[in-house]
């Protein structure tokens, strides 16, 4: 505990945590800045997507218009959906979470700041590449779902679809990295005493959202990789004649696509659950109910993807089951809605501008949810699927469920971003224009769909009854656009004319209001311990105590950026997390990855290869600048009685980060194996060669080789945990060599096999599985070699055993991959047939 004047302390903290200006700003890794960058960039793409929507509505206002021809329209509507879903909705929600979560949890930053920075730059560069495609008139034009075979090479010969596949995958890196960050931060970097039960509800929502991203995005990443391989390298996955199945794309896409909509809705519902109790001036009703409802929604969402495919020709029995399952998700949603209503009912609500937007959210989202339940009913779905009715439904749930809470959140946290209060008058005008305009546009659209108008049609014939509804929708969309412009103007003006905000202007209960307004880069001079769910309501003096340095971790003389590392469930302090400072690495890696993306796009494979190598070098350098390396020595002064620095422990955030990342990786691999089994059992013209191209014994030997190496590593790690590091460098080097030998053997097996990926889907999938395995084994080998080198430098030893333990997880994962590949590719085919 340090006592001092807040200004002096601020000076000292600012020296360690401060953000540089000018072009050096690209080195900033602090979560507040990164979060704001996500929000601003997301806003930019929202406007871009909105302009595309205006073009669509202008085109559809009248029948038989040719203001845009079919080709242009197809690019515009594909980009509208793609931009809104990938470049606005998810980054915006993640950005807000990146900004808010550490503050709400009483921490100074997220646990892997460089990773969040990397996420942002990948998002920015990927988004710019994708946006550029529209200006080059080469934008993706196969719909945001990119169904095969339309998006396959024969029917989309241009580079348009490649823009989507490469650009979006690049952007998804940012989604997954932010998700890993958030999961580990929420689980391991909370305020001391903040048990799971005392965590703010928003943190539960974000934890669920992040886990859903971790498990839900990889199937799409896999699908994109497969489709791009099919387009660029001629491999066969979705081509019927060569043993593929276009419906596989739909399964992979919707395995992602259904969780995606909850990934967008849940954080917004979390915002509602945060703001509503503050304006009702009482804690939320049914905290436990809401947490269980949120997690249940997350779990269920992975099982429902088939309801987007009711008209594809799936078995009839499946439709009844999925109808029921899809409707069930209305229950946890209903629990949340009624919790909010009960909170208002039992509280003493006050009216402010955010409440207006929350009201709009309730009406529009509930309406959308109700049409969703209707859509889950199979016979009704068979009629309205792919009509304007669905377009209306999705806008109700997305705009109502995400956009309205977002605007409410912007108004609510504006004093936090800028230190000034928003104005009520213009905000009210903005709301009514948007609310009225939105309903005029999309309520009528349900009707248009029921009158039989399909979606994604660039024009329509007169006399089908669609003329008037479309005109009304288009007029409504212009009103809505004016409303949105009003809101934007309001927000901009407040930066100049807004009244200075008092501390905690809304009298909220969560810790983010304990920072200065706007917040300093380090959030809090000292980190609080909490003993209740509503820290600022229960202990009003907490804010002052924190600012005076009377709470925890107030030392800064050592020049380290630190925050508490706490237990996942009990919130007890386990370690001090030593956070990295500003660095060029994330920006540089993102830049090089853009070169990879562009190189692949224009088929300049030499450039792409060089860029991949450069990226690998940078990433390995990044992994080098860790732990003891940052200290320049092994003896690091910490105050007596303080917990250890994280890189001296066995179970720090890095281990969790690796674990969560491997979950994402595993989801991708599971989707790949699913694809294998699926094609085997469902593809209409699946071809199995008479003799398997794989050398069964060779594969078995390969798996055994890896097993030996992994078990050896396990022994080394067990010894490290016991505090013994005898011959550590030698052993790690030998294990690395063994791993690389196994990788070389695998490469040789691949080469020697008679695989012809371009000829059959069978061979193509095997090739991808083996390639995936190879990549992971090489990665583990190289990283272990690097570890041996770090032992040499003294960065890793029995006092700093952290990194090898983290790496061990990758080896176990690889072992699982290799053995399951053996079972799936070698043993399973031999069990098929016969008997």
């Amino acid at each position: 505990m340090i006592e001092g004047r807040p200004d002096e302390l601020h000076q000292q903290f600012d020296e360690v945590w401060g953000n540089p200006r000018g072009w050096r700003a690209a080195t900033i890794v602090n979560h507040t800045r990164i979060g704001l960058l996500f929000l601003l960039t997301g806003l930019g793409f929202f406007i871009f997507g909105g302009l595309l929507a205006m073009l669509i509505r202008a085109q559809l206002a009248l029948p038989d218009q040719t203001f845009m021809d079919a080709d242009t329209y197809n690019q515009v509507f594909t980009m509208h959906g793609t931009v809104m879903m990938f470049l606005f909705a998810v980054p915006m929600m993640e950005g807000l979470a990146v900004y808010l979560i550490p503050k709400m949890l009483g921490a100074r930053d997220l646990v892997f700041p460089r990773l969040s920075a990397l996420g942002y730059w990948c998002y920015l560069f990927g988004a710019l590449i994708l946006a550029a495609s529209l200006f080059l008139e080469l934008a993706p034009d196969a719909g945001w779902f990119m169904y095969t075979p339309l998006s396959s090479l024969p029917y989309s010969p241009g580079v348009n679809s490649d823009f989507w596949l490469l650009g979006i995958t690049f952007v998804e890196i940012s989604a997954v990295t932010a998700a890993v960050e958030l999961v580990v931060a929420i689980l391991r970097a909370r305020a001391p005493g903040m048990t799971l039960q005392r965590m703010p509800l928003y943190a539960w929502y974000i934890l669920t959202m992040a886990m859903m991203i971790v498990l839900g995005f990889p199937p799409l990443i896999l699908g994109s990789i497969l489709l791009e391989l099919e387009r660029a390298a001629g491999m066969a996955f979705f081509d019927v004649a060569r043993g593929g199945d276009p419906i596989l794309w739909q399964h992979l896409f919707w395995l992602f696509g259904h969780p995606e909509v909850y990934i967008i809705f849940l954080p917004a519902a979390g915002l509602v659950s945060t703001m509503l109790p503050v304006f009702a001036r009482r804690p939320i009703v049914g905290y436990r109910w809401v947490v269980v409802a949120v997690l249940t929604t997350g779990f269920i969402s992975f099982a429902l993807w088939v309801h987007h495919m009711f008209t594809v020709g799936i078995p009839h029995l499946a439709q009844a089951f999925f109808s029921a399952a899809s409707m069930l998700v209305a229950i946890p949603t209903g629990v949340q809605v009624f919790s909010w209503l009960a909170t208002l009912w039992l509280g003493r609500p006050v009216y402010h501008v955010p409440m207006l937007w929350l009201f709009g959210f309730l009406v529009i989202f509930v309406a959308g949810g109700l049409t969703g339940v209707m859509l889950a009913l199979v016979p009704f779905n068979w009629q309205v699927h792919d009509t304007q009715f669905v377009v209306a439904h999705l806008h109700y749930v997305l705009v109502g469920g995400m956009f309205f809470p977002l605007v409410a959140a912007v108004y609510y946290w504006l004093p936090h971003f800028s230190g000034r209060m928003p104005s009520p008058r213009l905000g009210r005008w903005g709301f009514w224009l948007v609310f009225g305009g939105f309903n005029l546009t999309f309520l009528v659209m349900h009707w248009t769909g029921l009158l039989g108008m399909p979606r994604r049609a660039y024009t329509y014939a007169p006399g089908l009854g669609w003329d008037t509804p479309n005109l009304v929708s288009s007029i409504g969309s212009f009103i809505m656009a004016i409303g949105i412009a009003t809101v934007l103007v309001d927000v901009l003006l407040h930066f100049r004319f807004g009244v200075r905000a008092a501390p905690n202007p809304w009298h909220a209960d969560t810790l983010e209001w304990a920072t200065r307004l706007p917040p300093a880069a380090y959030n809090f001079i000292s980190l609080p311990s909490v003993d209740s769910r509503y820290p600022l309501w229960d202990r009003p003096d907490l804010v002052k105590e924190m600012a005076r340095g009377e709470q925890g971790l107030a030392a800064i003389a050592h020049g380290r950026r630190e925050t508490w590392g706490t237990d996942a469930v009990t919130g007890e302090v386990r370690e001090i997390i030593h956070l990295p400072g500003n660095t060029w690495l994330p920006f540089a890696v993102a830049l090089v990855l853009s070169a990879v993306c562009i190189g692949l796009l224009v088929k300049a494979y030499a450039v792409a290869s060089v860029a991949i190598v450069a990226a690998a070098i940078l990433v390995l350098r990044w992994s080098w600048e860790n732990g003891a390396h940052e200290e320049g020595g092994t003896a690091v002064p910490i105050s007596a009685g303080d917990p250890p620095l994280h890189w001296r422990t066995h179970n720090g955030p890095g281990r969790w980060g690796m674990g969560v990342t491997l979950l994402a990786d595993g989801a991708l691999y599971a989707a790949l194996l699913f694809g294998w089994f699926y094609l085997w059992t469902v593809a209409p013209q699946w071809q199995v060669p008479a003799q398997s191209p794989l050398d069964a014994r060779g594969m078995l030997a390969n798996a055994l080789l890896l097993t030996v190496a992994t078990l050896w590593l396990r022994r080394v790690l067990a010894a490290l945990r016991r505090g013994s590091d005898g011959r550590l460098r030698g052993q790690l080097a030998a294990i690395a060599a063994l791993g690389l030998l196994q990788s070389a053997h695998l490469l040789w097996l691949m080469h020697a096999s008679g695989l012809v990926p371009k000829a059959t889907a069978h061979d193509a999938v095997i090739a991808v599985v083996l390639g995936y395995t190879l990549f992971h084994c090489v990665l583990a080998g190289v990283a272990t070699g690097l570890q041996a080198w770090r032992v040499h430098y003294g960065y890793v030893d029995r006092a700093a055993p952290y990194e090898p333990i983290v790496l061990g997880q990758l080896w176990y994962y690889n072992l699982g991959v290799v053995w399951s590949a053996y079972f799936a590719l070698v043993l399973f085919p031999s069990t098929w047939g016969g008997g």
Partner: protein
Amino acid sequence: MRLIAASVLVPLLVTARPAAAHALSGSLPAGFPLLLSAGLLGAACGLYGIGARRVPPGRAQATWFCAAMAIGALAVFGPLDRWAQDSTAWHMVQHILLIVVVAPFGALAGPLSQWRAATGALLRPLWATILRCGRHPLAAAMVHGAVIWIWHAPRMYRLALDDPWWHLLEHVLFVASGWLFWWSVLCGRRLAPGLLAILLTLIHTGLLGALLTFGRVSFYGDGRALEDQQLAGLIMWVPGGFAYLAAAGWLLWRRLGEETAPAAVPARD
């Protein structure tokens, strides 16, 4: 005391008659696996009863145990077994009962204390190993998952159909791996690995159910109807999945309720 006796006798009685009927209907050697199953079940109950005299179980636990044994006996020795011979869907029902009803009920019954008391020092290493394994929900989930997928490979599945010894092995592995999984998840102390293990099991059983549902041909022989297989896949996917959902919800509910919720109301202003 009476309850404990009932919890032992009821399953035994339920088991005895149908099992005897099955065993005696065919020739005796063919009936051996079935008799062995009955024997295993009887041994489980018997040991439980003996151990219950030294370490009395709670009422709830005794009920779970009795229910697990009864349902298990019905599933394996009742008419369900006969229907399962010809119908993939009924076979799936039988397996689902074993994996998401008998196994978790057994786990909740926590019979290890009773079995340990009954066998004394003899099997102590066995119980110790099981206890140790039960601390790793993720590992248990992976073993359980491997067992499930291996037995659904066409050749293995048909092997079990044709040969009653393999069938017995299949059932034993399902119940044992399932028991360990559910025990590590429901009775474990750590919430995060437990929830994660349930989520992963939900996902992979869903994917397997999906494959069975969408398959274009019958995996397990031409004699079995495709639609039946589709229904089997759906049963595994949806009602099976529901069990995992319910378990996750219950775990979370229980964990969150353990601390008294501080009801703070902000000052009036």
